């Protein structure tokens, strides 16, 4: 009991020294809990939305093959008769048809797209009673007749749309314009989609290209009829060939599309855990210093009869208290973080309501458990060291017990692990197959990281000496004092630097992979793309016939190539076996536009009538070679015998594993209505006319803002930008870990200043000026930060290079080291060191000389 009281008193007496460790726990736990609350809330929100917007039973076209359905730009439909059949089913109150298309682009009078830029869909649909559950007409009228449209209020607001404005809807069957007759407002959460309502007949004729078709049938159950029962009855009523789902089944399917939420959750949690790991170093340092400062006190306790376990436990109790306080505050902060994140999402066009804020019991339990567990684990080693303090320590003047042998054991273990990690990375870089290579890479990263952490103290003395020769000596005796201080406790410097190392190693390795990605793609484009221009939609929507016509009509083009992805095709092998394989139909000029390397035959021949190419892997697996005959069948069409004219190399990085054939050839066995629209179109300018052709093509495509026309330079720039955005996002998430690491530097310095109070007093007494004192602390901080940066960047470069070597199997053939980023990070670390030292240096400068000397 007395020991517990001692722990409590110690904890509160030293709460100032625990603040930064506590903050590290708070930040990490807040991030964990914020992630959980945010994703839970999103899930609740979408569940509600899906439930509100679906009927008791929904009938859809049989979509067994929907996943592989190549895009014709028109949704699958069912005939209007199904509505009546379903409505007549026993237990059905009524049924009505839904006509929905998401394959539309809507532009305002300036030809600007009003589609969301977030990846959320643009939904064009008819107004039904389902919509009445989630939407309210807030101004104007619902659309009537072919020339009216209602638009959701969020979209209207974002694009400044008003009643009477004209909108042009672009879809595969053609364009049409409509005036805004009404504005509807989401009463539930708006997931960020742009929603447009048309008269039912308009959707059917203009978007589904069939005045008698619907995309879904909604069936409302009569009183007392369960969804399950109704489903059975509807199934019986509509017969085979349709998918019939209860509300639960239907929403489950929609929820499956929200799988990205789960991915997001785990990614965010991953970054939170990295931050927590970084926080461990902070906690270890804090407790080590507390124990060192308290050596005499602990010795006294041992001398008067406390046993090791009791001393040990008294330190751990403090850790539990710290973890408990930190994680409780963290849980609360996490809820705040989630609310802030929701506000952020709202500013990006979603409307999330805090009414749906979902805090399950898991959130606080995970938060507190994680916070306490990590803190206690981190304090375990210092606590054990406290237990080992001998009663004699009470009598000694001062004395931080040095543990030489453990240091050696640690260094050896670290070197062994680092060596093992290096070996694993080497294996990963030399791997022939991706899966075992990835495992080796993960192992190598883990081993080298742990190894570096262990040899950290050893490296600290080497690296700090090296750095001081280059940097510190410039500052003369103050620099030397800073060097000595940084070297004084290599374990502390090592741990502080290691915390920074983790974040920076990840930054460095990812920047290497990102830069290599861009460089590899650049080289691949230069090597294999002969086309001058590419027309595509960034969301992957196909090119409508009208737009394709516009491309073809552009002036000064030597040729235009269409690229149609057929998706899965049934292939009958010479032996009679039937397998499914992906195929692409393209104009014969595709052979010039994109160079696909072959191991046998020529690609130009593969686009001739009645010919096809197969990829090397497929050919090897089924023993095929040039001259063999295979039959291709598409869905319900007829089989067509084709001759293999080329075998494409597996080294080909673009479209490596598909069959290529000419569009004319494809037309012989793909039914006309099933022929997919082109995904991409390529253009080649007439000799010397590149600029004019590019200009002309852009002009022709002006009425089709949903498509982007790019030349090779644009394409590369876009790729670079995409990779850059992805990296920035990851850097943003790593910022948390780096902030915690910076707190660690501040923590180490602040505690060191307290620990060295008397020294500082002495130095001030014999003539060290405040400015020199502050500079000394700043230099120490910079050296620790640079040490962490050097380790992190070194480790990261090796990881990145190993990852690139491994990914070379997947086409990432060029190793590019982004020196600009690396150098920026290095000098950034120096700035971080300066910033981290601000407060500790200020406080040291303000110390009263006399009281510093007098401090016992």
């Amino acid at each position, binding site marked *: 009991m007395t020991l517990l009281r001692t722990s409590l008193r110690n904890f509160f007496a030293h709460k100032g020294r625990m603040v930064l460790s506590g903050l590290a726990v708070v930040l990490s736990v807040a991030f964990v809990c914020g992630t959980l609350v945010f994703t839970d809330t999103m899930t609740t929100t979408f569940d509600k939305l899906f439930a509100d917007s679906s009927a008791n039973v929904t009938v859809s076209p049989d979509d067994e093959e929907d996943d592989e359905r190549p895009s014709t730009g028109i949704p699958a439909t069912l005939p209007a008769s199904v509505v009546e059949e379903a409505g007549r089913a026993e237990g059905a109150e009524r049924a009505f048809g839904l006509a929905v298309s998401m394959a539309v682009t809507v532009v305002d009078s300036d030809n600007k797209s009003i589609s969301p830029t977030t990846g959320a869909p643009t939904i064009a649909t008819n107004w039904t009673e389902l919509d009445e559950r989630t939407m309210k007409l807030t101004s104007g009228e619902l659309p009537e007749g072919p020339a009216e449209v209602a638009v959701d209020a969020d979209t209207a607001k974002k694009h400044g749309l008003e009643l009477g404005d004209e909108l042009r809807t672009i879809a595969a069957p053609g364009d049409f314009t409509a005036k805004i007759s009404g504005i509807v407002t989401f009463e539930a959460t708006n997931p960020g989609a742009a929603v447009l309502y048309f008269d039912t007949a308009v959707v059917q004729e203009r978007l589904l290209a069939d005045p008698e078709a619907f995309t879904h049938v909604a069936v409302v159950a009569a009183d007392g009829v369960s969804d399950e029962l109704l489903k059975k009855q509807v199934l019986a009523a509509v017969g085979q060939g349709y998918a019939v789902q209860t509300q639960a089944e239907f929403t489950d399917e929609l929820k499956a599309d929200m799988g990205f939420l789960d991915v997001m959750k785990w990614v965010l949690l991953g970054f939170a855990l990295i931050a927590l790991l970084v926080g461990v170093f902070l906690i270890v340092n804090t407790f080590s210093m507390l124990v060192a400062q308290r050596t005499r006190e602990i010795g006294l306790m041992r001398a008067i009869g406390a046993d090791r376990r009791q001393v040990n436990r008294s330190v751990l109790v403090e850790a539990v208290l710290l973890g408990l306080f930190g994680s409780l505050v963290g849980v609360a902060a996490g809820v705040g973080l989630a609310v802030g994140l929701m506000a952020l999402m709202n500013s990006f066009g979603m409307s999330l309501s805090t009414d749906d804020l979902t805090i399950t019991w898991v959130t606080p339990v995970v938060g507190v458990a994680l916070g306490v567990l990590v803190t206690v684990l981190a304090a375990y080693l210092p606590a054990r060291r406290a237990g080992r303090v001998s009663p004699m320590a009470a009598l000694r003047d001062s004395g931080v017990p040095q543990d030489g042998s453990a240091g050696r054991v640690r260094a050896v273990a670290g070197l062994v692990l680092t060596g093992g990690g290096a070996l694993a990375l080497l294996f990963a870089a030399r791997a022939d197959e991706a899966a075992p290579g990835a495992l080796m890479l993960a192992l190598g990263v883990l081993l080298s990281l742990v190894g570096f952490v262990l040899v950290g103290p050893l490296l600290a003395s080497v690296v700090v000496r090296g750095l001081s020769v280059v940097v510190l000596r410039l500052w*003369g*005796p*103050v620099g*030397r*004092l800073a060097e*000595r*201080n940084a*070297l*004084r406790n290599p374990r502390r410097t090592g741990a502080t630097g290691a915390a920074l190392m983790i974040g920076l190693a990840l930054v460095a390795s990812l920047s290497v992979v990102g830069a290599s990605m861009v460089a590899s793609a650049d080289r691949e484009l230069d090597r294999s793309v002969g086309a001058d221009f590419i027309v595509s939609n960034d969301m992957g929507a196909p090119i409508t016939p009208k737009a394709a016509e516009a491309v073809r009509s552009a002036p000064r083009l030597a040729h235009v190539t269409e690229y149609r992805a057929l998706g899965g095709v049934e292939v009958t092998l010479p032996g009679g076996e039937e397998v499914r394989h992906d195929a692409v139909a393209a104009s014969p000029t595709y052979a010039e536009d994109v160079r696909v390397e072959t191991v046998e035959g020529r690609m130009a021949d593969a686009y001739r009538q009645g010919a096809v190419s197969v990829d090397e892997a497929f050919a090897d697996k089924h023993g095929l070679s040039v001259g063999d005959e295979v039959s291709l069948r598409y869905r319900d069409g007829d089989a067509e015998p084709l001759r293999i004219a080329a075998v494409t190399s597996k080294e080909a990085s673009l479209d490596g594993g598909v069959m290529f054939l000419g569009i004319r050839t494809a037309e012989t066995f793909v039914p006309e209505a099933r022929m997919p629209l082109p995904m991409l179109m390529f253009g080649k300018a007439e000799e010397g006319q590149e600029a004019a052709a590019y200009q002309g093509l852009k002009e022709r495509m002006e009425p089709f803002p949903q498509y982007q026309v790019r030349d090779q330079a644009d394409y590369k720039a876009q790729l670079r930008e995409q990779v850059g955005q992805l990296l920035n996002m990851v850097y943003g998430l790593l910022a948390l870990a780096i902030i915690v690491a910076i707190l660690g530097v501040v923590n180490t310095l602040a505690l060191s200043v307290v620990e060295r109070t*008397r*020294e500082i007093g*002495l*130095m*001030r*007494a*014999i*003539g*060290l*000026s*405040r400015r*020199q004192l502050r500079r000394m602390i700043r230099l120490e901080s910079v050296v620790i930060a640079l040490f962490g940066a050097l380790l992190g960047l070194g480790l990261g470069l090796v990881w990145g290079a190993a990852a690139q070597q491994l990914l070379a199997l997947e086409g990432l053939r060029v190793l590019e080291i982004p020196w600009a980023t690396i150098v920026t990070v290095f000098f950034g670390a120096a700035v971080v060191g300066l910033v981290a030292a601000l407060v500790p240096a200020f406080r040291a400068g303000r110390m009263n*000389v*006399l009281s510093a*000397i007098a401090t016992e």
Partner: protein
Amino acid sequence: MTTAVTESRTGGGGESTAVAARARQVVKAYGSGETEVVALDRVDVEIARGAFTAIMGPSGSGKSTLMHCLAGLDAVTSGQIWVGDTEITSLKDKKLTRLRRDKIGFIFQAFNLLPTLNALENITLPMDIAGVRPDREWLDRVVSTVGLSGRLKHRPSELSGGQQQRVAVARALASRPEIIFGDEPTGNLDSRAGAEVLGFLRRSVDELGQTIVMVTHDPVAAAYADRVLYLADGRLVDEMWRPTAESVLDRMKAFDTFGRVS
């Protein structure tokens, strides 16, 4: 007692003034109003150049406070203090720091040395901080005077308590300050090591012409001085020239009785 200065020796700096430091009407008070505690009460004192002065007095007499004020470590409440020709009571921290660095040497009771620096680095630290190259010849002389030649590369943790204090003495001497202040410099040493250190201080006055002011409560230590100042209740109450341990002890006993009677 006519003047505090009887004989003037040439100090290390070789300046003409016979007074190394002077305090006039110095008051040091802590707190205010009812809780005010006066540590120094209108103290006038002059420290002779090239002499070894000891300040004695019971605990709480203000002897340490007086030394701290004279050395520019502590600010006075009122009154003036000069070190050499410089009036330090009006100086700001920056100039005060520089004064301590260039003109004053310190020897504390304990924790005199930076653990990260070896003996030689500790000795030259004030000059390093000032960016001044140490005078090699003088340094060698100081080092050999305190008998540290073989131990210059040792870290403080590798030196005995007496050796550590000798390093501190060497540091104080090395930059040839106008005045050296010692705050119970032998308080933590056994009598033999203490005697050694006091011997060096005495010799540095006799042979090197150094000015030293030392706070002590040990009559034996005080006996090494040329002059002993007695403080009680923040006032200078007596002084003694050419003291011996016995005479100092007797005088203190007298104060004690006096104190009790009054």
